[in-house]
């Protein structure tokens, strides 16, 4: 019973990380058609900010001060990345270009982390005491990251349906040429989307740092798991991202308990292939995702 609770609670916590990665992937994809392969590295960067600036003796105020710093720092990094990625593109259908440039950014970030911090895992102390959930002591970040996922979900919903900028991004998502013809500054909106994605991923990495595997080469595993969450939920749907993340997280945690951590990625890969073969549009997506 206790084991089940641990799997459920920690699985949902890990799943919330995947949901946040998926939502941040969606944010960029919606505006530009781009899927950022470096998103996992961005999560790791957020975690590294926590590792660098959070003291070993818990200090919640310092944490609250640094949370926006981490979010804004990653927003800046991703805006720059967005600028670089969009530079050679005339249209978002030129997949080869952004596939390569976002993957290259991921490799670059890994390389820099390797140079500065070596290849060992970087540990962070949780700034909040762990507390009991259904009788099991649970480290606070598992719960906090779930809350964060819901906050970003609500914020994105409000942004895309209530603000003019958000609506403009939705317009770009639906018809790029029409949006351009309507006088929207598409390139700026796309860079803004990269920035928003950075806010999400920066706050996620910072909050989840104590429960993440922060290392030079862990970024790719996070982005692929986040992508699986996005596909399971349906690409472009944040509701889907929330649910998909939870599914992937719990499945992943169960696998780790039952068979060992080295099988986590194998099982999510299996899930990805299964969904793509059977229902490529995911739970909440539109069937248009598949072509020929």
């Amino acid at each position, binding site marked *: 019973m206790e084991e089940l609770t641990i799997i459920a609670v920690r699985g949902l916590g890990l799943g919330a990380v995947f949901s946040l990665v998926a939502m941040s992937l969606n944010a960029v994809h919606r505006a530009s058609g781009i899927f950022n392969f470096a998103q996992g590295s961005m999560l790791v960067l957020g975690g590294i900010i926590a590792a660098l600036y959070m003291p070993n003796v818990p200090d919640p105020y310092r944490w609250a001060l640094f949370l926006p710093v981490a979010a804004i720092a990653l927003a800046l990094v991703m805006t720059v990345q967005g600028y670089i990625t969009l530079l050679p593109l005339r249209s978002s259908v030129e997949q080869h270009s952004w*596939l390569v440039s976002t993957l290259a950014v991921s*490799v670059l970030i890994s390389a820099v982390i390797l140079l500065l911090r070596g290849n060992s895992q970087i540990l962070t102390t949780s700034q909040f005491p762990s507390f009991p959930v259904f009788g099991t002591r649970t480290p606070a970040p598992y719960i906090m990251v779930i809350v964060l996922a819901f906050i970003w979900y609500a914020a994105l919903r409000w942004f895309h349906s209530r603000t003019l900028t958000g609506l403009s991004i939705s317009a770009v998502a639906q018809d790029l040429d029409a949006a351009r013809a309507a006088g929207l500054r598409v390139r700026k909106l796309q860079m803004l989307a990269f920035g928003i994605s950075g806010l999400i991923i920066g706050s996620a990495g910072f909050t989840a740092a104590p429960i993440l595997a922060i290392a030079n080469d862990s970024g790719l595993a996070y982005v692929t798991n986040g992508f699986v969450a996005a596909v399971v939920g349906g690409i472009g749907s944040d509701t889907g991202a929330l649910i998909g993340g939870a599914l992937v997280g719990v499945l992943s945690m169960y696998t780790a308990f039952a068979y060992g951590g080295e099988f986590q990625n194998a099982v999510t*890969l299996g899930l990805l292939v299964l969904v793509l073969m059977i229902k490529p549009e995911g739970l909440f997506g539109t069937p248009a995702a598949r072509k020929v």
Partner: protein
Amino acid sequence: MAGISPTDSSPATGPALAMTGGAEPVPEANRRPADLQLATGIVLIIGSVLLPAVLGNPYWTHNFTIVSLFITVAVLQNLLLSDAGQVSFGQGAVFGAGAYITGIVSGLWGYPLAVGFLSGIATSVVMGLLFAAPALRVQGFYLGFVTLSAALVFPEMLVAFSDITNGINGIALPVPALKEDVFGSLNWIAILAMALACLSLVFHAWFRTTALGRKMRVAAVSPEAALTLGTSPGQLRFIAFTIAAIGTGVAGALYAASIEFVSPYAFKVDLSIFFFFSVIVGGSGRLIGPVVGTAILYLVPNALLADLASYRLLAYGAVALIIMLVFPDGVVGTLQRALRRYRARSGMAGIDFKTVLVESAAVSRDAETSIGITIRKARKAYGKMVALNDVDVEIAPGEVHAIVGPNGSGKTTLLNVISGLARLDQGEIIIGDADATRKSAYLAARLGLGRTFQTPRVFDDISIWDNLQIGADASISGRSSWLLQSLEKYRPRWSRELPDSLPHAQRRLLEVLRALAMDSRILLLDEPAAGLSSEERHDLAGLMRMARDKMGRTVVLIEHDLGLVWQVADRITVLDAGEIVTSGLPREILADPRVRNLFAGAPPEGAANA
């Protein structure tokens, strides 16, 4: 030794070089760009291994042996990426599977090396097929993520199943016989690696001249166009992944023998990314691109930064990013483009409309029986939008039948359901005497349909001649194309030029000619006159008449330019909001008041003589 012949990667060996496209021989000069790249590539590969071997430097002999194996993988990745359009970030796992199984079978279990090699190659093929399966359903970044995950998972599985793989301790695979120096510091492994790399290049060059290779490139650029040319993109993807896996597996098996040791660390995701970046840095789609790319990515960090191994990743990432931003065509592509721009000043490519017309028409041939199309009670809806509602059209054999109507009236939908790109909800379509209602596009194409698209689907990466050849490859009659024969004298020039230098009107003509080269009995033309000058429209009308009168083709024409329609159409069908308004001879249509309302404006010039 018998089992390790590297020829497995290719059905064609030496003679392939001498063989050129299709059945007929081609003047030597036509293939110059590819031949030059091929020769340069082979010289580079052999030279890089032989030079240190002659000088007796085992360190560099060994390094270039590894580079040769990596080049092999990269060449096949290039084929997969640019010829077949498949993004695989997991070729390192395919390579690793070949290496590891060789290690397990021969190193751990003690079977002869030949058995190990064959098992390794077989495992790589299985791995490649595993990649191909999702490629049937999804493309682009989806496939990128799937293959990337596979590359991440592969080394984890090597550790997880340590009972079989010996886990992180790795497997020793001593091959003293192959490691003996034959000449200088040259051993058998180096010779085999060198031969394999050259062979993969030769194979790639040859493959592009085959009908299969051309079809693959068409499917990569436009699966829809491939379907209308009568090929199935799914099959082609399977073939591409299999070809790549075979060669990559051979390279992997040789790699295990070359290092004499395998461990999970050698096959991390970085290796897959390395292969992909090699292609991009060198120039994807360019024959010699992977050779240059691999050399740059492998040698720069290993030679210049030899003491700073941890900078290697940084170098990969930085080089790939800079190349993508500054020289998106890669090193070779950028050089080639500069060269072409220089040459282009000496003369512009072009197709002389009239000459082509006159010459093609001059060739007399047996008129074939024309076939027609019957559409009954056709209904097609997209969600709530009804695109076709109870449409009956009779297209008689050997007529030019124009379908006109305002935007959104269902014209293109009608063309799509005829050619099988969309499926009817209700009703039936008979082509000739075959029921085509449930036929997919490529089966419909085999019933004798050829079509063009609103935006010309011309393939810019392959020569003008090959663009036509693609049509002839898809010929349903199985005979060599009379059209291509009649154009034979243009072949040398058109084989050297790419269609990206052609103006719009000529690209359109090229597409029409391609549909004619298919020997299709029915031509479906979707707004062929869009963007043409009045003189070009006149020529186009001539071409359609010729197709009807001299070749016995049935032409279905969708057109906004009513002037052109009055000029050529034998029969006109007017569509509005998914329904037939009227159908009949041009003068009947002209008299119909309902039609006048649809097309506000005076009847076009020349209508009187129609």
